[in-house]
């Protein structure tokens, strides 16, 4: 038997179509999965950051029981002025230095209160940024 008749009798068309499809599917799936490997590995490497993020959001939900006196509010306003002169995000060490040379009272303790109140927040990459909402809530 020869020609198209032989192909049809031996189920050639179906074998070819299904065969090509399986090869394509296999390599396409493999291609898709290996294109994601490096992203999955990145995610795995940064799994601690994800946990910190979760803790941070949980912490945010807890009410902060901090009382700001008029002196504390004044100190917060002065720190805000200093932060405005700096880059965003800024270095806490530089802010402390600026506060010391500007003659602010008890700069360490004031800074600690601002951090606890969430007015100054870490960006988790070694720097900090100013949180306007928290400032309005506690110090304005």
């Amino acid at each position, binding site marked *: 038997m020869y*020609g198209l008749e*032989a192909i049809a009798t031996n*189920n*050639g068309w179906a074998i070819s179509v299904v065969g090509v499809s399986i090869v394509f599917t296999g390599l396409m799936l493999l291609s898709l999965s*290996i294109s994601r*490997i490096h992203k999955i590995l990145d995610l795995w490497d940064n799994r601690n950051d994800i946990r910190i993020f979760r803790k941070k959001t949980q912490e945010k939900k807890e009410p902060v029981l901090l009382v700001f006196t008029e002196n504390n509010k004044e100190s917060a306003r002065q720190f805000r002025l200093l932060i405005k002169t700096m880059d965003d995000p800024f270095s806490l060490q530089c802010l402390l230095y600026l506060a010391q040379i500007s003659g602010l009272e008890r700069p360490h303790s004031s800074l600690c209160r601002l951090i606890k109140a969430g007015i100054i927040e870490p960006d988790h990459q070694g720097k900090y940024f100013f949180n306007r909402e928290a400032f309005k809530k506690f110090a304005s």
Partner: protein
Amino acid sequence: METLFLDFFQNTGFFLCDYRNIIMILVGMLFIYLGIAKDYEPLLLVPIGFGMLMGNIPVFKGLGLGIYESNSVLHYLYLGVTQGVYPPLIFLGIGAMTDFSTLLARPVLMLLGAAAQAGIFITFLGALALGFTPHEAASIGIIGGADGPTAIFLTAKLAPTLIGPIAVAAYSYMALVPVIQPPIMRFLTSRKERLIRMEEPREVTKREKILFPIIAFLLCCFLAPAALPLLGMLCFGNLLKEAVVTERLAVAARTSIIDSVTILLGVTVGASTQGDVFLTTKSVGIFFLGALSFCIATACGVIFAKFMNLFLKSKINPLLGAAGVSAVPDSARVVQVVGQREDPTNFLLMHAMAPNISGVIGSAIAAGVLWSFMS
């Protein structure tokens, strides 16, 4: 005394010689010449060529000398071919010497390796149309995968009587990649397309390289379990290489094991081409269809690369499609040569290795699929 002398003379090759043996000895010498003088796949053509000389020495039947006599040494060595032992061991070595970085850096190029496998199935149809049985047609079609071990493995399982012609055809065309592919590549691409430069691939981490063989093996073998012997060994070899802690095993796989098996495979496949068995009309058909399969596979790869360019933002050089037929690393080298003829500063070799390696995986899957369909 005269009788003794006459008996001895009747047992010599000069007396038993057949014109078919002479033809095959000449073909064997041509293979050796191409391997040594022209440097066409010498590691394969020289053992196969010498095997042809060994297999075509006319011997007295019953002495246990011929490869098809069950008690001969050559027959025992040939069991590695007929039982499908050698091809997976070669894949182990290939895995241990292959770097999958370019494939991991740009996985989309893997589709070119899949497209080139269409040649296998088109040739399968052609072989059926020419009157071959489905088992024989599948074994002939796999020549288009341009992967000698895969072709031998599948033929050993489906049509053991055709191992000689199919192995010789597969390896001959693999050696002739630099002759067969360039005209097709130039015919199907414009100069502008051949000048396309590929983006620099991203850096691939060690962990990605270690994970790849495991993921590839699990994914492909769950999809096509019949590809297990070939893909399993390929991925295992690669894992040995990338794991670093198993460097000794990797070195053994990519040096002593693959070299020993290549020698045994080459010599026994060559020896299996005894003139009376090999020179048949079927062999002529196999050679014709094998060449056709190779050409179709190359064309499918190039055309699919052009098709992909319709959708990709960062265009790929369609010449890379030709590397989708396995023939590692010859077809990738051909891509580099053809690309550099247009622009000597365009380096495509590294990029061509991606479809080239995916072609190996694709042809192993195709072999597994055909085997499972025919079983």
